[in-house]
């Protein structure tokens, strides 16, 4: 079998269905389809989201890095570092996430679990997408054009090799987990 499989082939679509199903199950079992769990991260009351994300980044990242080293993966998919747009967009995103209580992926999963305010927020997302598309020409000229560094990675901008980055990030993640678990034990005692 030749890898990667074309995403537009029937096999590709079957894979999308399997991956989507597994992703949906993981999001629900991770309890991130629950508004309270997500906003309680921003309130430092519940670290479920952080545990899931950091673990996914480390496990996923180490695997992808290894597979890249073996030549099993064709290429990275790096999003453009348009500094002004990413900073402003991320700042706006955080406000929306605290207000809505979901991000796009967890919203889709939460709607499927019946949560009605998640569904109403989905129509909001559609509206946001429309507003973005119509303001795109202006944003492209005035915001996206500022600080374009291209598809760069941390190792490109720092000169520190990827392997070192992974050692550092793994240590940081493990330290964060330790602190979270210790804090919780004290609280529950």
């Amino acid at each position: 079998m030749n890898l990667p499989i074309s995403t537009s082939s029937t096999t590709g679509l079957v894979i999308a269905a399997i991956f989507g199903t597994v992703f949906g199950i993981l999001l629900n079992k991770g309890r991130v389809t629950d508004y309270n769990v997500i906003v309680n991260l921003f309130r430092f009351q519940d670290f479920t989201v952080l545990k899931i994300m950091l673990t996914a980044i480390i496990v996923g990242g180490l695997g992808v890095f290894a597979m890249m080293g073996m030549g099993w993966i064709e290429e990275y998919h790096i999003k453009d570092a348009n500094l002004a747009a990413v900073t402003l967009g991320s700042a706006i995103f955080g406000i929306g996430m605290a207000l809505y209580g979901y991000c796009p992926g967890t919203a889709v999963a939460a709607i499927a679990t019946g949560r009605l305010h998640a569904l109403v927020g989905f129509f909001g997302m559609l509206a946001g997408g429309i507003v973005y598309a119509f303001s795109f020409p202006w944003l492209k000229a005035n915001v996206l054009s500022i600080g374009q560094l291209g598809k760069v990675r941390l190792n490109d901008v720092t000169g520190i090799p990827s392997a070192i980055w992974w050692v550092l990030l793994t240590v940081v993640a493990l330290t964060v987990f330790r602190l979270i678990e210790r804090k919780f034990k004290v609280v529950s005692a």
Partner: protein
Amino acid sequence: MKTKSDSFSPRVSLSLKQKAWNPYLVGIGIGVLSWLAFLLVNKPIGMSTEISKFSGWVVGMFGGSETVSNNAYWAGTAPAFGYSTVFLLFTAVGAFLSAKLGNDLSAEKVPAVWEQYQGPGVAKRMIAAFLGGAILLFGARLAGGCTSGHGISGTMQLALSSWLFFPVMFITGIITAKLLFRNKHTA
């Protein structure tokens, strides 16, 4: 307020009938899913691009297909059924199955934390959810991705843009939550 599953349990139990799994195991699951996504289809997990394509469909339905094809954004991100559409729809299927088996289906209108601080008003929560959703997707498009595309898939490739996204959205999320959940609601 602490929740039960916030504590670390060394017992590994992964039945679909459980309401929740250990968050570290869920994280490992998403990590392994990402390996397979890179290896089998070389397409990282993402969600917000697809939702903005749905926006394009809606505009196409009411404003005609020319409005969409003439738009500079949708010209580059054409609304079309494909891999990401199937992925999004089946994310819903998976979450539904999981919630059904785990007894987590809920027609929630006003979540508990919101009610505690903003009151039980349904209209208020719905307006906030709508506005929040709109702000969220606008921000995701401007940043070039969301919690999936940047927060997980991008960071695991050590993308600079994604490692910028993660802390910035976290900070504004904390500030917004501080403002929203400052004073308890009194009837």
